[in-house]
């Protein structure tokens, strides 16, 4: 029988009424408040609907995550897992064999993230702004084409760029010659000072489609009336973008930033494909993902150490969790979502 008359979430029905401002809190409190049920038999179907997803998710994702965090507190001593408290972290930060690599990987990872924020997201916003201009012809073609790199795998992207930038093949020097810049060419991926930046830019090239699409969607959802009102007030062109549209798409920019953050601090494939597990030249492109892989599986003469691997994964977990918390509590609560 009808279980409830739904007090539908404001997020859906509000779309018909104008200018309702809401944020997560209001939606949340409503959910909680409506949850008082009279006595009735246990509704098995709810459990059955939820069970498979919750079981798989818990068993394969949540428990291993917790297990990894727990493993980082143990160490294998004579074939036994012994609880050692924070010793693994002391090794990670204190023992020069580990700490030099760890800080190097972390520094590189931060640089990797900075380049994405400074290059990928502005380019994405710019492309989206251009794409969403009214009556632009071929918009669908541009959208489709610019998104192509995003669907390719890292293996393809890493290797294709490795070939293009290779001095052996000579495509890059040849093309720079065409615009008279041949003297600037060096094998970027092979030089310590350039390799990481070059790889970051390759990654930007691959993923620029994601901010573009999300911002594009946000720009499309700005109602005509707002734009018309702006035009009546004489705000057009560039100033319209900066004064009207940009503030309205700030929440999407926030989402993109956090997605970039999580993606970057979890990256591995591109570096592994282009530079191998050693993240050469001379560890200059080592990021946390490749560092975790080496620690966990070992490489060359070093034996893999699951416990140290778990300690590094725990650090990555804390970094990502920190970023997500900053986003949820500082950014998300201050940015109001405008629902039209």
């Amino acid at each position, binding site marked *: 029988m009808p279980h409830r*008359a739904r007090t539908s979430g404001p997020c859906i029905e509000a779309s018909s009424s104008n200018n309702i401002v809401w944020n997560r809190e209001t939606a949340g409190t409503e959910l909680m408040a409506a949850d008082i049920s009279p006595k009735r038999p246990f509704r098995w179907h*709810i459990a059955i609907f939820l069970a498979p997803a919750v079981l798989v998710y818990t068993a394969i994702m*949540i428990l291993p995550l917790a297990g990894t965090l727990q493993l980082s507190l143990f160490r294998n001593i004579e074939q036994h897992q012994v609880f050692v408290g924070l010793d693994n972290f002391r090794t990670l930060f204190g023992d020069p064999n580990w700490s030099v690599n760890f800080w190097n990987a972390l520094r590189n990872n931060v640089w990797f993230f900075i380049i994405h924020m400074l290059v990928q997201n502005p380019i994405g916003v710019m492309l989206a702004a251009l794409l969403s201009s009214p009556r632009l012809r071929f918009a669908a073609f541009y959208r489709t084409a610019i998104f192509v790199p995003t669907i390719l795998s890292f*293996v393809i992207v890493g290797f294709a760029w490795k070939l293009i930038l290779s001095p052996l093949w000579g495509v890059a020097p040849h093309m720079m010659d065409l615009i008279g810049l041949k003297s600037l060419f060096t094998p970027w991926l092979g030089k310590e000072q350039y390799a990481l930046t070059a790889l970051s830019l390759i990654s930007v090239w691959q993923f620029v489609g994601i901010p573009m699409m999300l911002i594009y969607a946000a720009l499309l959802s700005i109602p005509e009336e707002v734009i018309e009102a702006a035009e009546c007030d004489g705000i057009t062109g560039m100033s319209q973008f900066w004064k009207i549209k940009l503030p309205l798409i700030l929440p999407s920019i926030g989402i993109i930033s956090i997605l970039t953050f999580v993606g970057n601090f979890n990256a591995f494939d591109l570096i592994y494909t282009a530079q191998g597990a050693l993240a050469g030249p001379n560890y200059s492109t080592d990021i946390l993902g490749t560092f975790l892989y080496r620690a966990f599986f070992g490489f060359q003469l070093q034996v893999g150490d699951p416990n140290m691997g778990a300690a590094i994964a725990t650090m990555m977990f804390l970094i990502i969790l920190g970023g997500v918390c900053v986003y949820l509590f500082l950014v998300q609560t201050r940015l109001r979502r405008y629902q039209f």
Partner: protein
Amino acid sequence: MSTATRSLPRTIGAHAILLTYTAIALFPVILVIMNSFKSRAGIFGAPLTPPTPKTFDLIGYTTVIGQGDFIHYFQNSLVVTVASLFFVLLFGAMAAFALSEYRFRGNSLMGLYLALGIMIPIRLGTVAILQLMVASGLVNTLTALILVYTAQGLPLAVFILSEFMKQVSDDLKNAGRIDGLSEYTIFFRLVLPLVRPSMATVAVFTMIPIWNDLWFPLILAPSEETKTVTLGAQLFLGQFVTNWNAILAALSLAIMPVLILYVIFSRQLIRGITSGAVK
């Protein structure tokens, strides 16, 4: 939109920038595919020109097909992707239905719990996942990959699908209940067909990272029997560093299925992104 904002120079400028960026986005892909059909002399002599009758050569493709077991890898990838996709969509839709349709104690808590995985990547649990798979004897089986990818895809699927399921009319479901349909029938016969477009969106979102993943095949299923295309291509490329024909052909073979699927589904994908599920 009024004509006040439009002027010819602005339009030309917009097209110029978009065209330039499109060229940057497509150039490496076109370059690789173009050169894969050339002889070695053609690849190095004139890398930027399309293959001519003089430089046309399929030697790369014959090497790849002769050496690597790509068809087998391809099958593995297909099995893993399709099976994970099936479970993500089925389990995800069921959970999303429970969360969006019924009010019960802990509803929003459960929603939050399932949403955790959107932000925290499953990769961080790798150490323990490997131990789990070793303990259960699933290392080097496709089952291990399917399980992991199902868990990986579920959070986003539940999140997006429950947004869409809230939009399904209550009257319809209640009419079904009055007619004596069970909750299961309502879900499978009434609700699922109505959210099919959003299922397609979720499918595309789930599929791309699974097909392209290198990390879990490398760690959980690196054996010859269970290699996926991505891992196979990675190892093949590592071995044939100096055989440019073979490398370019292998890259093209890896690009083309994804590219073809993308061209077919791009409208669906883009509509999915812009329809506001992730607004």
